[in-house]
C-alpha cells in the first residue's frame, strides 16, 4: 500500500506538470514508493502507482524495468551500486566487484546474509573521472581500491 505521506509527496511532483500529465511524475512516484518499501518494488506497488497516476500498468512496468535505479527484488539496507561501464572497467571495476562478492559471500543482485548490504552492477553514473566508483545511498565513492572498499563496508551499519 502506498501511504498517505507518500501520496502527498507524489502529488507534489504531479503538481509540477501541466494538468492531465500525471504520468510525467512516474519516475518520482516509483522512487518514492520504492524508498517507502525498503528499497524495492513489487507488482502490487507497480499496479498501485499505475492506478494513482491513471496510467496503463504495463507503461509503469516499462519505466520500472528500464532504469537501473528501481529494484524488483528485496535489497539490503545499503545497496552498493557499482559502475561497470567503460571507464570504471578499464580501471579495474570487474576485479573490485569480484572482491566485493567474495567478501560479502553474495553474487551481484543478492543480499548479504545479515541483510545489510546488496551489490548491484549499474551503468555509468557520470563520475568517470573518479573510476572505479560506486554509489551507496546518496554518496559517491571514487578511486576505489580493495582497502578503501574494506573501510567503506566497515562503516556501514
Amino acid at each position, binding site marked *: 500500500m502506498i501511504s498517505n505521506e507518500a501520496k502527498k509527496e507524489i502529488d507534489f511532483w504531479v503538481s509540477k506538470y501541466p494538468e492531465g500529465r500525471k504520468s510525467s511524475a512516474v519516475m518520482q512516484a516509483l522512487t518514492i514508493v520504492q524508498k517507502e518499501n525498503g528499497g524495492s518494488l513489487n507488482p502490487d506497488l507497480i499496479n498501485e502507482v499505475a492506478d494513482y497516476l491513471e496510467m*496503463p*500498468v*504495463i507503461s509503469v*512496468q*516499462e519505466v520500472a524495468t528500464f532504469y537501473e535505479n528501481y529494484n524488483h527484488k528485496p535489497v539490503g539496507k545499503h545497496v552498493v551500486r557499482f559502475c561497470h561501464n567503460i571507464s570504471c572497467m578499464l580501471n579495474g571495476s570487474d576485479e573490485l566487484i569480484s572482491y566485493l562478492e567474495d567478501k560479502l559471500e553474495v553474487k551481484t543482485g543478492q543480499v548479504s546474509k545479515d541483510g545489510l548490504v546488496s551489490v548491484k552492477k549499474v551503468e555509468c553514473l557520470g563520475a568517470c573521472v573518479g573510476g572505479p566508483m560506486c554509489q551507496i545511498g546518496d554518496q559517491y565513492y571514487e578511486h576505489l581500491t580493495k582497502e578503501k572498499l574494506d573501510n567503506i563496508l566497515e562503516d556501514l551499519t
Partner: protein
Amino acid sequence: MSEIEIEIDGHLVKASQGDSIISIADREGIDVPRFCYHKKLSVAANCRMCLVDIEGVPKAQPACSTPAANGMKINTKNDKAKFAQKAVMEFLLINHPLDCPICDQGGECELQDVAMEYGSDVSKFNLGKRIVPDKGIGALIQTDMTRCIHCTRCVRFGAEVAGIVEMGGTGRGEGVKIEPFLTEGIQSELSGNMIDVCPVGALTSKPFRYEARTWQMNAVQSVARHDLVGSNIYTQSYRGKVKRVVARDNDSINETWISDRDRFSYEGLNHESRALKPKIKVDGEWQETDWQQALQFAVDGIKNNAINPDQLGVLASKHASLEEFYLMQKLARKFGSENIDFRLDQTQLSTGSSLESSINLSEIESVDHALIIGSYTRLEQPMINHRIRKATLDGASVNTMNSKNFDFNFKTKCDALTAPQKLLSALQSVLKAVHLKTNQDTPNDVSDVTPSEIHNIIADDLIASANGVIVLGEHLNSNPNSLAIINLIEKIASATNLKIANITISGNSHSAEKVNFIPSGNGLNAISMFNDNTKAFLLMDVDSEYDFIDSKSAQGHFSKEDVFVVALSSFENQSTLRSADVILPMASFYESSGTHINFDGLVQSYSASVKSPGESKPGWKIIKVMADLLDLQGLDYVDSTQVKEEALQSSKVKSSVDEANIQSIDDSQVTTHWQYAPYASDSVTRRAKALQESNVGMINRAYVSKMTAHKIGLSDDDLYLGVPVSIEESVAVDCVFIHTNQARRA
C-alpha cells in the same frame, strides 16, 4: 498541403508536403523493406530496416519517419541504401532463432521474405542467442517471444487501435522483452489483429497452431456475419476444413482489422456436435435416415399438423443469409402463412422494419458527440465501436445511458446509470430538457416531466453537437417498452438534429428486413406464435435454449405432442433434439454461398469457402426442395444468384409505431437485465473453443449495486439465476445486470 516533387529511384513523383518517403514509395509500387512501419499505426522508426539514401544527406535515413521535401532525390536501391539495409538485417537476425521450419509464420513471414533478399548466408555473430521465456497471453494468441524483433507494432496496436494498452517493452538493451504486465491474458476484443500486424512468428494464432502451412491452404474472399458490419475476410481452408480466418482490407468497412469473434469463430464449424445426417423422430426415438425420407417426413408432418395454412410458423436466426430469408418467407407465404419472424430476442415487436440508421460507418469516426443508449458497443459491435473511439481521439465526447458502466476503450464524459424500467422516463426527461432549452413545443406525454440534472447535461451536449450521433443498442431489445423508447429516441434525434445509429439489431438482420421476414396482416410474430393454434414450425439455425427472449415458453411449445417441428440446423444439441421432430443438417457459415447486408445497407455476396461436412446441404437448397415437395410454385431456382437477384427486388415495410402502447411498470421493483456476452451470439461462435476460453468468452457475472444487493439479499459470489454475483457500484439501482454466455434462465 502544398504539392511537392521528389525523385525516387529515378522517377519524378508528385506528393504532398509532409508525406513520409515510405508512403510515397508504397504508392508508387517501390518496395522498401520494413518491419515496424504499418500504414494504420504511428511511426516508431525503431527497426531501421527502411533506411534509404537521400542525396546530400551523409547517412542513410529511415523512409518511414523522414518526410519528403521538395526536390529530394531518394535512392532505395543504390549501394549505400543496400549496404545500410543489409547491415540492419544482420543485426535483426543476431537473436532471431531462425526456426522457420517449425514456425507457423513460415511462408508468410515478413522477416523471412526480407531476409531472403537482404540477409547474408553467414553471420559474423557466433555467440549464444538470447532466449525469452513466454508468459502466455490467453487462449487466442500463441507467443514465441524469442522470435520477436521488437518492432512494437503490437504495442502500438494496443495503444492506438484497441485502446487497451496491454503489451509493452520492458527492460533495456539486449534484455528488452515485449510482454504484458501479468499473465491474465489479453482483454481486447480486437486482440487477434496483433497476429496480423506481427511481422514475425512471435505472435501467431493459437487455435491454428501447427494445423497447416500457409501455402497449402486455399484462401477464399468472404464476409463475416457475426455483426452488423460484415467485415471483409479471407477464409483459409486445408483439406476441406476452414483452418483460419484473416482480415481483408476494406477501408469503408473494417479498415485492416477484424474482431476476434470474426477471426476465431470458425473453430465452431468443426465442433463434435455438427449435424451430419438427416434424422427423424419416430415414436419419440431418433432415427438416422436419408434425405429423401427425411424431407418427405418433414413435409408430411407440416401438411398433417398445419391443416390450415396459418398453423405453420417459420422462424430463422438473424444470421441466415439473404437468400435463405427470402426463400423461407416465400415458402411460408406460398403455403399461406404469414407467421414469419427472425426477431427472436425482442420483448416488443414492431409491425415493420426497425428504426433506420441515418449515418454510415465511415461517418461515425467524424462525429463530434455520441450518446450511447443501451449498448456495450465495444463487445457487441467491435468495428462500430472502433469508429466511435476514433471520433473520441479527434475530440468527440461520449455520454452513455446504460444500466451498467462498461469498460469502453475511450473515456466517457457523463454516464447516466439507468435501470431498464426507468429508461423510458429518463428519455422523457431528456426530451423535455431538449425542448425547454431550444424553445420547442412540448408534446403532451412529456409536458409534466421535470428534467433532472444529469439529463440536462445530456440534453446540453446533444444540443451543442453539430454533427453527433445517438447510438441505440442491443440492451433495448429486452426492454418491455422498447418501441416507445425507440420512438422517443427518434424524437430526441430530430429535435436536436442528430443522426441515429441503430445497432439493436445484429447479424444479417438488414437482409431479413429487406425481404420482409416479418409477419404482415394477421400474421403472428415471434412472441404471439407460441399459442395453441400454431402446430407446425420450420426453424432455421434456431437454438431454442439460447435464441428466444422467452426460451421457456418456446421450448415448452416445441416439445408439445401435437406440435411438429422441422429444424434446419448445423448442430445437434439437447435442446434441438428435445424440441425438433426432424433435423435437416444444414451448411453453416462459410459452407454455402450467400449475401449479407450491412449497417450501411451495402450488399455483400460471398461464395462457399468449403464443402459442408457429412450429408449437410446449403439451407437455400433444402428450402427449395421442401417447397417442391409441398407442391408450391415459383421456388424452382437454379442457383443462389437467381434467388439473390429476386430477393433484392423486394422492398421493406416501414414501421408504424403505436405510441399508446406503453406498459406501466412498477419502477421501484428490482429488474433483471439478462444480456448475452458477445461470444454467445450465434450457434457457431458458441462452439468456438478458443473464443470461449478467452477473457471475453468467460464473461459470466451478475452485477448488482450494494443497495440493491441488500434489498434482494445477495452477496458477492452468490449464484443469481445460476450466475455468480459481483457487487459493484457501477450498476444502476434496482437492477441486476447479467452478462453471460450461459443460456437464458429468466
